């Protein structure tokens, strides 16, 4: 058979004789007849102009590997970037489970034929609920930013108010997502965003500024713990009490990997809690590992505002445990534009990866990883603080990230990071454009993956660069 008539490996019916038989079954001479509904003048009328097909897996694999070889990964280099996507240890069995064909490839089945998948989802929500100390956890959304956006809109509907207080120092990526969710001023349902200052000495929320900006028109106070700049917020009870006094909801964004050592948000007055799944056993994938969660107390008032899918334990006709979707009528599948915001494909495979992660970690794993991160991050801050020209304003009280100021070195973060890169180090996230008020600063992230040796290598290299 001529090569151009070979059946394509992905298409079992691309055998020419088979296609002929299918056409014979329909009594047609050409497949083109089947497209009779499409007017000729709508047709492209020419073949697509694409590069030649690489239908050989050997050839395609080579092409792809050549492209991927142009990337330099955080495995081959020493990485201190975080900010909204973090390099943590991913247990091997997390990768094994999310690559299982049964979980990797399906869309929807019936409650019985999806039993295993649904149970894994329920184990995700159940275990995350334990970490957060909350009873209601939804199936995930796209990202932390999207979760925060939905939560703010939930609070606006709950209170009938249209103002949100946000911390001044927030991930610009996340804030840009939230701005869209809050709608422009021309829209009737616009939510006004007002910033709360940070206390200059501690990096925590400025409670006086919060008090000044809270009022009967505020739907919600949103803050993060740890904050974007890494600080652990300790006035959590005061913040949520102040919000409650004014009839506002408290939304807290958390990093779930911190919750083996930090207080769970359910214990300190958070009404709605959001955050990222990515630290829970998902690789960074250049930002493709993100997923967002939304949780709250199991109070119908909150439950009725969720835009997400909600998986509930359920009983079969024979009294067995199974799982089903609760409150489907309030999501966009059930009610189109009358539903709460919208839902659709999300990051459900990562819910399974995170379920595996939480199962393997257990309470002791979360405690150990949290303690290790705290100790190594503070050790790193101490090493860097000792370098001439470097200043760390808040040298304690953080979890895994801290701000390093290079004003005294006379060098820009960009220059320093280029020099670090030449030595195999991805320096901290450059904050100079997003937060000029912090001077020439970078956000450094230290995790359980950084050994003492790595941290000394960073410090020695920075010393050399800053002195040079």
């Amino acid at each position: 058979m001529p090569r151009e008539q070979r059946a394509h490996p992905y298409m079992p019916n691309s055998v020419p004789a088979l296609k002929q038989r299918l056409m014979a079954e329909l009594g047609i001479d050409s497949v083109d007849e089947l497209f009779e509904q499409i007017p000729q003048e709508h047709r492209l009328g020419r073949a697509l102009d694409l590069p030649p097909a690489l239908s050989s897996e050997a050839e395609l694999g080579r092409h792809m590997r050549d492209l991927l070889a142009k990337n330099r990964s955080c495995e081959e280099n020493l990485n201190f970037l975080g900010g909204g996507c973090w390099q943590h240890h991913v247990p091997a069995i997390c990768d094994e489970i999310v690559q299982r064909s049964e979980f990797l490839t399906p869309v929807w089945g019936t409650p019985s034929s999806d039993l295993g998948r649904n149970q894994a989802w329920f184990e995700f929500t159940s275990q995350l609920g334990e970490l957060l100390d909350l009873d209601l956890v939804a199936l995930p959304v796209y990202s932390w930013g999207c979760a925060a956006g939905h939560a703010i809109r939930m609070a606006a509907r709950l209170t009938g108010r249209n103002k949100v207080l946000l911390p001044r120092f927030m991930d610009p990526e996340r804030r840009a997502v939230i701005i869209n969710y809050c709608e422009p001023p021309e829209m009737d349902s616009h939510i006004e965003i007002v910033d709360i200052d940070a206390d200059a000495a501690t990096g925590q929320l400025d409670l006086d500024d919060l008090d000044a900006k809270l009022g009967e028109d505020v739907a919600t106070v949103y803050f993060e713990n740890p904050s974007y700049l890494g600080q652990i917020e300790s006035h959590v009870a005061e913040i949520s009490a102040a919000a409650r006094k004014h009839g506002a909801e408290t939304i807290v964004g958390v990093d779930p990997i911190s919750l083996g050592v930090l207080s769970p948000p359910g214990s300190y007055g958070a009404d709605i809690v959001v955050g990222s799944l990515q630290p829970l056993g998902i690789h960074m994938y250049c930002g493709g590992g993100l997923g967002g969660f939304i949780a709250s107390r199991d109070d119908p008032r909150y439950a009725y505002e969720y835009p997400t899918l909600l998986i509930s334990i359920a009983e079969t006709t024979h009294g067995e445990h199974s799982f089903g979707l609760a409150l489907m009528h309030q999501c966009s599948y059930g009610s189109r534009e009358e539903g709460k915001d919208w839902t659709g494909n999300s990051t459900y495979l990562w819910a399974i990866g995170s379920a595996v992660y939480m199962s393997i970690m257990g309470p002791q794993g979360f405690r150990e990883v949290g303690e290790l991160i705290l100790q190594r991050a503070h050790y790193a801050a101490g090493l860097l603080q000792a370098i001439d020209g470097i200043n760390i304003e808040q040298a304690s009280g953080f979890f895994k990230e801290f701000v390093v100021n290079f004003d005294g070195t006379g060098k820009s973060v960009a220059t320093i990071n280029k020099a670090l890169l030449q030595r195999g180090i991805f320096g901290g996230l450059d904050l100079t454009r997003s937060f000029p008020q912090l001077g020439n600063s970078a956000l450094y992230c230290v995790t359980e993956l950084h050994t003492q040796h790595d941290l000394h290598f960073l410090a020695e290299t920075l010393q050399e660069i800053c002195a040079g």
Partner: protein
Amino acid sequence: MMTKPKLRRYHAPVWDEPLVMEMSVSGRRGCHFPEAEVDVRHAVGGARDLVPAAMRRRTEPNLPEMSEPDVLRHYLHLSQQTLGMMGISLFGTCTMKYNPRLTEGLTARPQIADLHPQQDPDTLQGALEIIYNFDQLLRELSGMDQFVFQPAGGADAAYTMACITRAFHAARGELAQRNQIITSIQAHPCNPATAAAAGFEIVTLMLEDGGFPSVDALRAAVSDRTAALMINNPDDMGLYNPDIRQWVDIVHEAGGLCFYDHANFNGVMSKIRARELGFDACMFMLHKTFGVAKGGGGPAVGAFGCTSELAVHLPGPIVEKDGDRYVLADDSPSSIGRVREYLGNVQQVVKAYAWTRAMGAEGIAEASDISVLLNNYMEKEILKIRGVTRSHPDIEGWRIEMTRYSLGQLYEDTGVTVLDVQNRMVDFGVDAFWLSHEPWIVPQPFTPEAGEMWSVEDCDYWIAVLKQISDEAYSDPAIVTSAPHNQPVHKLGPKSLDEPDRWAMTWRAYRRKRSSRK
């Protein structure tokens, strides 16, 4: 039928697998972390003292304590109790197709898996080159001028359109006035839902005799309040609206934008392009049409493409080529910012790029041909089955890559519902078909989509199973209404999950509610 399928003696694995929370044994460990180095401990002291007293966790999270092999085996058991693509799944509109394992392996490599999105672009050249080149391929498939991959699903791409529509009209000072988005009842619910979440009023056009809303209905709907039209074509009944160009002209004349939801692209790829039909923007789902695994509902990508006129509003960062380097451009001043953080689900873009290269122009054209050929072949056989009819029986002719059927006749004759049939099909290793979006416009609807992946044998088997169940419905309907019989558990009981004391979205909520009921 072209083949004579024999019904398989399928039975799903039954593990009676407990919840992981029920498997805990105090003291078991699934993973260890090292203790901080001696010098580290000496320098910073104990971890507890590094946390402000008010913020120290006082009670351990009540997570399971499990050993590593037991966690692995638990989730393997759960995976085995998930039918999906292990059997035959023709879930309409989702375009079930092969997900090449080559790219699963490639994207698991550190050169994708362990990249941080804010690395120096010099260290992301491979990823940026793939994104840039895939944009070029989609431009050829659509005629659009620029694509971005940040939207994390088809609905997120629809939301992107709604945000860009706001920016477009705001730039002209008309946003407060142009606050309506028009769609049809046959458009995916994400179109009206995202537009409403973006702050727009929704105008929904109903279907008329031809199977789609009339040109006159559209004319009556547009005005100086029209911001945009969001529409799919063909729809998921397999009907193509031949007036679509006129639709676009009418909306443009009224000052609105036109968004082509290409959810149903598989049947028409290589045949038509959004640009030639006049659209300003379109969306492709990489997890459907472009061979990326669905993951049970993401991570996904709604690739959003638009004309150069709208491109100034696209969410950043935009990948550009500067000489032989790939760079991330600053956001344009009129960019909508972000609909999701960073560049999107980059690993899925890598997979879609590889799928498109594996198929080539001829492969893509052939996949479209086969998906339409197979749908019409299936239709011919399915309509022979007792109790099954086709939507809009008055509209003759071939459908595109899907056909909407009804089991209304079967239900009237036997009392067996479409959900009963779905539950019975899984007994033969055939996972659920898709029904229809809400609201149902035909009774007891179902919508299979063959695509290009399933063999004739698979499709014949699917048809044979449906035939078997129709026979059962007419001879012994209890077999169908009490199904499934070959699955790990029976169907859900009648108790609603919408009752606050009944629903339990976590195990801790379930235990609390169960004990309060006793």
